[in-house]
């Protein structure tokens, strides 16, 4: 994928292995795309010719970056399995996944080939807006639709937590294990883990989680439809993990459509999922804003450790020191706010307390 001179022919040959219904395939253009932090992305203009008739389309390739230049390590096999399952299921709007070079022997690296979305991302759209119209509600509904997908509908190879408690305890333990393994001692992460352990929210059924839900991962096609991309972090977990991650990511790189009107956002989400107010409220979203961040901050931490040990490099990775410290600041403040709310509720429920 990274050899720009060789790729047009390599891609044409690879597509030819899947398209015996056409006489010739020509890759007219091939160019790297910006926008993928974790994967290398490229766009290709392809011409198919049969019986003198030519058709053209644009495809997107999504593959592993060159060795030593990865900001986040994820598994393409896992992503392909999820994409195939969602493409077949047809419940969540995604750009259809077409082909997969499982070994990397054809495209130079493990790479997924998928349809190109002609519109831009929701991020680029709302960055230009001062009023967000119905986008907050549409986004709440979209996340809700993802969270209606049950573990039984997902590929067997996806990891299944034994229980809700096992999932949450596992995530809390992850904060500690990444910290323990890191070249940096991080008292903030240790404090976060201790606080999360002491303040678990009411449980919800385990569902499909996207893992990295954010406006740049929602594309808008030319008819205005939302399409969800970048499924590499998809897992079976607590649906609120996604709400929390959306909240923290959008606070770091706004606009944040949840924060615009949290109660309205959550009402639409509850309607889409059927979940209740005891489980879906601003405090539980706050809890998961902290908890779920470890899934991506942990991998960032690992890559920064490799950077420190001379095993990784690159400006994109170095830039992520800011993500870790942004998390520190926000999580300390978020926990302070939640703790104050819990203390106030406890005081109000104490016998003899005045309202």
């Amino acid at each position, binding site marked *: 994928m990274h050899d720009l001179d060789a790729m047009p022919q390599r891609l044409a040959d690879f597509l030819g292995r899947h398209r015996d219904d056409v006489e010739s395939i020509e890759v007219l253009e091939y160019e*790297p795309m*910006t*926008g993928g*932090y974790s994967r290398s992305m490229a766009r290709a203009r392809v011409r198919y010719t049969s019986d003198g008739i030519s058709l053209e389309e644009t495809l997107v390739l999504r593959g592993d970056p060159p060795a030593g230049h990865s900001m986040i390590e994820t598994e393409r096999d896992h992503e392909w399995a999820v994409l195939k399952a969602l493409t077949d299921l047809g419940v969540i709007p995604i750009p259809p996944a077409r082909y997969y070079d499982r070994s990397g022997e054809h495209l130079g690296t493990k790479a997924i080939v998928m349809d190109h979305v002609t519109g831009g*991302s*929701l*991020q*680029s759209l709302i960055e230009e807006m001062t009023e967000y119209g119905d986008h907050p509600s549409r986004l709440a509904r979209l996340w809700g639709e993802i969270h209606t997908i049950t573990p039984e509908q997902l590929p067997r190879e996806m990891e299944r937590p034994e229980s809700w408690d096992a999932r949450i305890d596992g995530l809390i333990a992850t904060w500690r294990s990444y*910290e323990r393994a890191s*070249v*940096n*001692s*991080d*008292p*903030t992460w*240790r*404090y976060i883990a*201790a*606080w999360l352990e*002491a303040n678990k929210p009411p449980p919800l059924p385990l569902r499909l989680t996207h893992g990295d839900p954010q*406006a*740049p*991962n929602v594309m808008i096609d030319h008819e205005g439809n939302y399409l969800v991309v970048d499924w590499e972090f998809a897992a079976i977990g607590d649906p609120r993990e996604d709400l929390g991650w959306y909240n923290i990511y959008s606070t*770091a*790189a706004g606009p944040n459509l949840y924060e615009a009107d949290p109660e309205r956002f959550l009402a639409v989400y509850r309607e889409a999922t059927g979940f209740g107010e005891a489980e879906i409220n601003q405090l539980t979203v706050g809890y998961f804003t902290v908890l779920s961040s470890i899934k991506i901050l942990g991998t960032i931490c690992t890559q920064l450790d490799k950077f420190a040990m001379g095993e990784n490099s690159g*400006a*994109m990775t*170095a*830039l992520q*020191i*800011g*993500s870790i*410290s*942004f998390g*520190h*600041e926000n999580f*300390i*403040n978020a926990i*302070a706010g939640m703790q104050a709310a819990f203390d106030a509720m406890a005081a109000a429920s104490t016998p003899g307390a005045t309202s």
Partner: protein
Amino acid sequence: MIVRPTTAQLLRDLRHELTEVVGPEVHTATARVALEQIDIILEQCAVRAESEIAWMVEEIDEIEGYASDVADATGDEATTAALIAGRRERSGSLELEALAADYNRMSEALSCAIEACMARAEQHELRARGIEILRLRRAERETVVRANWRLVGRG
């Protein structure tokens, strides 16, 4: 040793050169994004070059005092052990690698001390003091180091 211009001044001059001279000649989207990322990192390096040694020394001393108070008040074994290790192995050097190792060891004592207070409801005042160290000494300084940080090149 020529100490002026300072490291921070040199780094900021590089930023200026990249933005004003190199930037206009860069025409591909991926290279423009990389240049913007480099600009952010150079500014962060400039801030760190100015203050990180002084900050680490100051925080090591403050954490040592705090962890010592927690160890005395709770008798927590992990805090005591981390504190002893932090003191015994402290190099006292201002060389960056050695100081970073000192800082990491004392940070472990801070982690243990806060955990000890979290597990003991009666230690709410010491717990609040530990969280305040996290907030004031670490998070607020990290905010200064972040400088003009933003997630460049997404979406």
